């Protein structure tokens, strides 16, 4: 074999670099590496021929061969990087998705709107130190009426259209108020600060606006020196937390046999902002709850001396306010459990 000259080596390098520029895939790059840097390549030849060179020629040739090898290796690395980048780009470009296709649905459940609203109320009153007390849905006439200061034939009984049962003295509670009697009798003479949530029933026609079963939440506070001022303060806080800091409210006199003085709380219609609309029946106000100072007769039935103790109570219908809040067209939706309705909450 002829020993390669430095000039030839330089020429080989230029040829190799030129070839490398044309390489555009991994396979060709590999072939190029074998050809230009492999055993039979000019550089390797140059190295192996060093032994046959004179002592004087050897360093120059060695240095030249080394430089050529370094140059070729560097060019190879560079080319490799370019090809890798190009290949990544190619694969990224070929892999793009139609992002507008629907995602894989995850089936999940939801809480019923009434459960959601109840929990919000639990939280608000929980923060104010109210505990939750529940009592039966089927009640005695005594607990539902008599002990709430409505003896038989009391005119105020007309305010509640009642479902009676074939058992004498047993009815479907028309409000959560009988729970007041139960919690007082259970806890007297302790101070009381509770909310009483639960299902109630009234004898009404079943229409889009009136329902036979609905959920109520009642508040009861009993202690020494509980005042109307505190009733007002508590309800104002509740209204702000529920309807917003800016919500206007008013307390107007009303009548419930189990409270005195009695009041109803109206909140400015959140649908029309008080201008008058179908939801507020043109009045600009929505009635949200009834309240008052616990009647002395009720305190007495509950086991508290009305000369020493006082208390306040308030009650609200959850279905109706939820109905107004979401502008639900039919109150019966709550208990028909149509999935198309429930899925929206």
């Amino acid at each position, binding site marked *: 074999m002829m020993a390669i000259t430095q000039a030839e080596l330089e020429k080989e390098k230029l040829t190799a670099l030129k070839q490398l520029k044309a390489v555009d895939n991994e396979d060709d790059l590999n072939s190029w590496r074998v050809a230009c840097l492999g055993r039979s390549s000019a550089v390797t030849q140059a190295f192996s021929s060093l032994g046959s060179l004179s002592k004087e020629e050897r360093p120059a040739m060695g240095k030249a061969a080394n430089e050529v090898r370094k140059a070729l290796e560097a060019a190879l690395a560079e080319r490799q990087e370019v090809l890798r980048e190009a290949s990544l780009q190619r694969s990224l470009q070929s892999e793009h998705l139609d992002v507008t296709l629907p995602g894989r649905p995850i089936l999940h459940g939801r809480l019923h709107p009434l459960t959601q609203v109840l929990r919000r109320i639990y939280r608000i009153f929980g923060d104010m130190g109210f505990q939750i007390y529940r009592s*039966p*849905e089927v009640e005695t006439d005594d607990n539902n009426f008599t002990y709430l200061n409505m003896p038989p034939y009391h005119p105020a009984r007309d305010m509640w259209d009642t479902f009676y049962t074939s058992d004498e003295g047993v009815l479907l509670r028309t409000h959560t108020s009988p729970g007041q009697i139960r919690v007082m009798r259970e806890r007297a003479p302790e101070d009381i600060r509770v909310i009483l949530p639960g299902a109630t029933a009234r004898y009404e026609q079943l229409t889009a606006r009136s329902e036979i079963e609905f*959920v109520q939440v009642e508040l009861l506070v009993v202690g020494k020196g509980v005042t109307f001022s505190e009733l007002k303060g508590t309800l104002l806080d509740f209204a702000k937390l529920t309807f917003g800091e800016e919500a206007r409210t008013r307390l107007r*006199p009303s*009548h419930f046999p189990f409270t005195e003085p009695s009041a109803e709380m109206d909140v400015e219609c959140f649908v029309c902002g008080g201008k008058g609309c179908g939801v507020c029946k043109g009045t600009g106000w929505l009635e949200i709850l009834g309240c008052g100072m616990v009647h002395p007769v009720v305190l007495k039935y509950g086991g508290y001396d009305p000369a020493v103790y006082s208390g306040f109570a308030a009650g609200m219908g959850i279905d109706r306010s939820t109905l107004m809040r979401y502008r639900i067209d039919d109150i019966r939706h709550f208990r028909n459990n149509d999935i198309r309705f429930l899925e929206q909450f």
Partner: protein
Amino acid sequence: MKAPLNWIKDYIDLDDLSIEEIANVMTMVGLEVDGVRLVGLPMPAGEHHEFKYEGLSWPADKFVVAQVEEVLPHPDADRLVLCRLNDGQKELVVLTGAPNLYPYKGVGQLEKPLKVAYAREGAVLYDGHKPGSVLTKLKRMKIRGVESFSMICSEKELGISETHEGVIILDDDAPTGMPLVDYMGDAVLDISILPNMVRDASIVGMAREIAAATKRPLRKPDDQLEMHGKSIKGRAAIEIRDAELNPRFVLGLIEGVEIKSSPYWVRRRLNLADMRPINCIVDATNYTMLELGEPLHAFDYDILIKRAGGKAPTIITRTAEAGEKLTTLDGETYELEPYMELVTDKAGALSLAGVMGGEESEVNVKTSCVLLEGAAWNFINIRKTISKLKLNSEASYRFSRGIHPALADQAVRLCLQRMLAWGGGVVAEGLIDEYPAPPEDPVVEISTHDVERMLGTAIPIDEIQDILTRLEFDCELNRDTIKAKTPPLRLDINPGLVGKADLLEEISRIYGFDRIPPKRLSEELPPQHGNQALDMEELMRDLLVDLGLQDTVAYRQTSPEREARILPEDADGEVREYLRIKNPITTDRTVMRRSILATMLEILEHNCHLRQHLAMFEIGPVFIPNADQLLPDEVLKLSIGMTGLRSQTTWQDKAPEVMSFYDMKGVIEGLMDGLHIPNPSYQPVKRPSFHPGKCAEVMVGEKVLGVFGELHPLVKAHYEFDDYPVLAAELDVTSLLEIATIIFDIEAIPSYPPVIEDIAVIVDETTSAEQIEALIWHAGGKMLNRVRLFDVYRGEKIGVGKKSMAYNLTYMAPDRTLTDKEAAKLRNKIVKNLEKELGAVLRSQ
């Protein structure tokens, strides 16, 4: 009650206040204004109104009082007349078809011109010929050749009443040319009367409340009465059998009255108050009732004399006799109960006391002498009567809420005064007044301390006294205490401690709730009891929602027939007692439900065609009558219902699997796991509603927590379900919550790697997974960490009646890495145990 504003203004000066302000004052003292009907008055200015307004305004330039000078026949139409009319500005001819003008047709210039309500061209009013309230604008047109551009109005056209039989003929003193709105424009306030404020179901009552709230003087009606007739003494008698039912009875007599129409202003007010004018005598009783709140009744005196055989009648008040009947003036005949109070004479019943008059003795066109009744009745007895007979009237509405007997004589005098003014005649001297049981008007003591203790704000004693005095309490002031005597016009104030609360209500509502400052509750909390049952119930809801189920809330009222769908009658020979509703609203809601499962299946049925995948639950009570107690047991249950595909079909997942028993079991297991129920077990069970081979009980120890499975095909056939299996579960929430643990031990995260391997064993088909797993655990001991079934195989290779169960086992030691040798030893022990106990065969790899 409908209250015409101008009527209220008879008793109190309010001209400086707008309708809006007056309505607001009323609402804020407890006379809630539901709406305002304008009858002539203009709509309040501004966009934002606190109340709902409707009705018609009468612009002053379009509606005026006019006088008809002459009524001429129409040249071309019998049913039309032409009126020569003066509207205060000029003379015009106006066309009308009003039948009440026919009598004046062709009689020439009227001696006394007729005063009418006249609408000029361009006026907007209600169309008299169309039902309801349809607005129309008066335009110039020709009717049968005669030009018409304006109108003499009927009540309907002006929005006063529904009457369109003829045009309004105003009282003679109406000033021609005066804008109609100034003459008789009004606004009717629709007031909700609270049950304890029946004293305010009267115009004077309302005026009193407004006067108190605005600190204005109240002008009470003047009941001066000229009694120039022969004395009533000896011409009628009263016999009260039960003073408790009838504490007072007053009679007055007027003779020689003419039965005719009341003056127009009276009829208009009655119409506005929603009462139909009849004649001057009946109108006088109704007018006085609306004014004072005391219902009255007028008898034809001559008929009573006739019934008494020509002698002076004796009015007897008593309860009904057995089998007694009465035909009331609405023509209905009622069978009376023995507790019902009657007004009678010796010949029999005259009227149902405080409710409705009888037909026979009522005032009629021939009446000339009127015996007038003003009485007081026991309100509870009236309530019983009207609720039994389902008979309601303006009188019974008031009497059933308690009318003070003191009003009776005042109302009789006032009413006789009206009869005299509107019907003529002469009033007999004196009244007959039987008053055996005057009520005690309680005296209540209240101090500034009482007020502050209850309201939380101090009100000066002078202001308290002023409020009570304006409400006509008789106040005796002693330093910071007032002794207040209840005025004899209300029965809602009690003595003693309750009376204090009654007065506090009066003081606070007139003082104004808006003036009482709000305060937060004291920071000292009462003893804490918590509500663990509710906490756990809500935790269950969260768990079930996380497991993909929809929360529902369902009706408690159902019917036995509806519940029978899940359980064919006699399927288990058990008799089901229901809590029955005495007055069900519909025939399919007659009882309180016993089965929460039945409810759930109805919910699923409703939705099954709407979605491919359904998974829902309800937590709620069922009602089981309990012979040992008055009230039924309310047992809290959980129902779960699932049907359809495991997921909905999508472009990626075109054929999801159908949900089976094991999907339901997965939910149950997830729930047990979430509630940390220790070691739940599952056993096959047969229940009538479920498929006999696909039903299990979930238990802890011996305690059954509930049942779940696939619905029995025969039960399913009772519903309109799709072809998919219907999966259902019913669990007892109370039992679940008793066993659920809040505090539990957790396992340490292992520090050494596990050894994981698979084994498969062939066993008899009848061997349950639970048996195998129990044996694996037993043999595996402490080192066995996890057992997971990953395959069940049946096939020819392993023989008929056999199955292969493949498990993935994890071995682990807490303190070292297990060697292969140790793992092999464990595995051998497990396999041996299965071979020995079940005859299992290790399946060759």
